[in-house]
């Protein structure tokens, strides 16, 4: 056992590091959150500039084939690059979904001409993509979606509503899954497209989250026309195409943001309780130990994943347990950080509370992390079914026409 790179990995890491040192600012604590900052336009402009620099230096589309502007390298190189980039202020969030999910789907299903047209501009940060999947009627049960696609000559006409779309407000293009047939079983009536977000009839409305921030959108479709040439996969094969996209979803929602162990440890070291330093309190130490072993468990699992990838094997269990463990830890640590501040904990003024309100912000953001990109419950189902091989639930929605399924709203 060792933590050494192979010679190729070491060379790539050195190249990435020198690129980052030359072009990016080292991180001094805190994460730049997609669309979460004060000046969204500035963040967006910064992201565009950064993505273009990465592309010019050969660090965009690391695993993507060379003929579409990528580097054609193995996934371990992407992991290495991300680790290195993580030490710098590098606003890649804007492009995560497009490059992680949308473009791979395009490369799998679009025509050669379309691939040539769309892949390179996305890699260079010139065009931003979003993913139109979730609906009010279909979140965990994605295939329950009801956005309607009707054929009209060489076009399709789309009507309906999507929700929880990250980045829709500044995206140029999107991938979209719709229902084209309500009379066949649920998973057989879906059809997949890509579209121009500036198409007539597309309306983006921000969702105001419980925290007051707006990181997601609702997207409404009113008689939106999409040419049949922008269909990905066969009519009725939309579920299969969606699965290709979702296979890449682990890139989209990863580990929860701070506060994690390091932040709560720092807080505790500066906190005095009624009977002395908080760090001397047995209850505090017990909780800290719980979080430390979880944090390290994920970090060490990541080393196992990297090892598997480095050997060209399928990654280990990390991708499935990462979010389940880190999202709850995020929420628990946030609560605990408020507790440590006693009655002041309820205050949110960054001047008054510890660490500019990190724990208060975490308290209001963490519920979303337990839901986005697969709820705690869905992820446990995935572990149970795909890793442990346990049977699926009894399903009442596999047969018969979709339109006859109960919705609870009739």
């Amino acid at each position, binding site marked *: 056992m060792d933590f050494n790179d192979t010679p190729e*990995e070491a060379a790539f890491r050195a190249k990435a590091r020198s690129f980052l040192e030359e072009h990016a600012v080292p991180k001094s604590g805190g994460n730049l959150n997609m669309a979460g900052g004060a000046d969204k336009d500035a963040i967006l402009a910064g992201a565009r500039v950064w993505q273009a620099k990465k592309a010019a230096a050969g660090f965009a589309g690391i695993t993507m084939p060379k003929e579409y502007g990528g580097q054609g390298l193995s996934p371990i190189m992407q992991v290495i690059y991300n680790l290195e980039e993580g030490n710098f202020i590098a606003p890649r969030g804007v492009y995560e979904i497009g490059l992680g999910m949308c473009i791979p789907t395009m490369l799998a299903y679009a025509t050669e001409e379309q691939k040539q047209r769309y892949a390179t501009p996305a890699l260079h940060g010139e065009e931003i993509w979003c993913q139109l999947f979730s609906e009010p009627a279909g979140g965990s049960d994605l295939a329950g979606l009801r956005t309607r696609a009707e054929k009209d000559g060489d076009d399709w006409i789309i009507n309906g509503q999507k929700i929880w779309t990250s980045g829709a407000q500044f995206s140029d293009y999107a991938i979209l899954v719709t229902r084209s047939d309500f009379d066949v079983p649920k998973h057989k009536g879906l059809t997949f497209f890509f579209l121009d977000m500036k198409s007539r009839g597309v309306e983006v409305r921000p969702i105001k989250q419980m925290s007051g921030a707006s990181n997601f959108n609702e997207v409404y479709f009113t008689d939106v026309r999409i040419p049949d040439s922008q269909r990905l996969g066969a009519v009725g094969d939309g579920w299969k195409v969606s699965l290709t996209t979702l296979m890449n979803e682990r890139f989209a929602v990863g580990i929860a943001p701070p506060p994690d162990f390091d932040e709560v440890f720092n807080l505790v070291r500066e906190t005095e309780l009624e009977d002395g330093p908080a760090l001397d309190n047995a209850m505090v130490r017990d909780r800290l130990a*719980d979080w430390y072993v979880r944090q390290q*468990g994920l970090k060490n699992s990541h080393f*196992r994943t990297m*090892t598997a990838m480095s050997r060209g094997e399928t990654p280990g269990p990390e991708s499935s347990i990462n979010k389940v463990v880190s999202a709850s830890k995020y929420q628990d640590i946030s609560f605990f950080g408020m507790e440590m501040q006693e009655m002041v904990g309820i205050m949110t003024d960054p001047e008054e509370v510890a660490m500019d309100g990190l724990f208060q912000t975490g308290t209001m953001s963490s519920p979303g992390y337990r839901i986005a990109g697969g709820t705690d419950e869905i992820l*446990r*189902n995935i572990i*149970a079914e795909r890793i442990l091989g346990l049977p699926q639930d*009894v399903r009442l929605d596999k047969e018969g026409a979709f339109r006859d399924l109960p919705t609870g709203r009739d």
Partner: protein
Amino acid sequence: MNFEFDDDQRMLRDQARRFLLDKSPPEVVRQTLEDEQPFDRDLWQQFGDMGWIGAAIPEEYGGGGMGHLELCVIAEELGRALAPTPFASSVYLGAEALLTAGSEEQKQGYLPDLATGAAIWCLALSEGPQPATEKNIAAAVSNGKLSGAKIPVADGDIADRAIVVARDGGTVGLYIVDLNGSGVEREMVATMDPTRSQAKLTFKDAAAEKLGDDGWPLLERIQDRAAVLIAFEQIGGAQACLEMAKEYAMGRFAFGRPIAGYQAIKHRLADMYIQIELARSNSYYGAWALSTDAAELPVAAATARVSGNEAYHFAAKENIQIHGGMGFTWEFNCHLYYRRSRQLALVLGSQRRWKDRLIRALERRNAA
């Protein structure tokens, strides 16, 4: 990045698993549980013959000279098979103590017999229900003679030699005592896990030979090494619980279908898997620190120990729960793991103390 066991080590794991499936199935473990025998002497002898006992002991001291990563691999399989032998006492504590602090003469003199299994070693620390600390150790050495009592001592009834924590004047030290010599009385004590026997040792002017110079810090170093190895036993046991619970849930029908299809059961099994994978990854890091003598060992060992305790605790109790009423019977094997999970959780000191120790190690690392 190479954070995985290599092909030879994986091969060793497969061999060990097959061997233990054959020689230490639950029926064999039960013989130690239900009969009077304190351990499985045949099995122990075979471990010696195969070089497992001396796996991490250098060849110059009669060992196999494989290394600590190989020992971790073996430990996981022993934990999975609930092997009723004094492996932890003799190898993780006894041999590690001698390798860590023994003089050349002590290593030459003691390790060859230990490595073959001919001599069994144990560590005598606890003196009753109060947590053992540097301040409250009462066993005392004077002019090379030890007096005092230790209870419980894992494998104290069958060991040939003990490493005894005792004080000489104001200083706590580690002492080697021949348990077959004069001035030693031993008495088997009843425990929750009779597959790992324990004893009360009473010393009256027993000859004691000093091991190493620094007492309590040395004890903690030895415990750190043992904690990593025991964490591997714990993930082996926890994994066995997960597999048992899964198999039972797949075959047990209720309300017209296998209970493995109900989310209440699926999510519990998923949680077992999550706990085990976190503990496994932390144990790997411990194995790396152990095998390289890294400065990180105190943090890595406590991390492996705390998550190993947690994973086995959870897997053993939920395994019974998933088995329902049958899991609570003597006939089903669930309780064998439940017992062992409790034994391993306490044998190096409680979870509470290891959590405290982890934070202490982090404080030290931060201050450095």
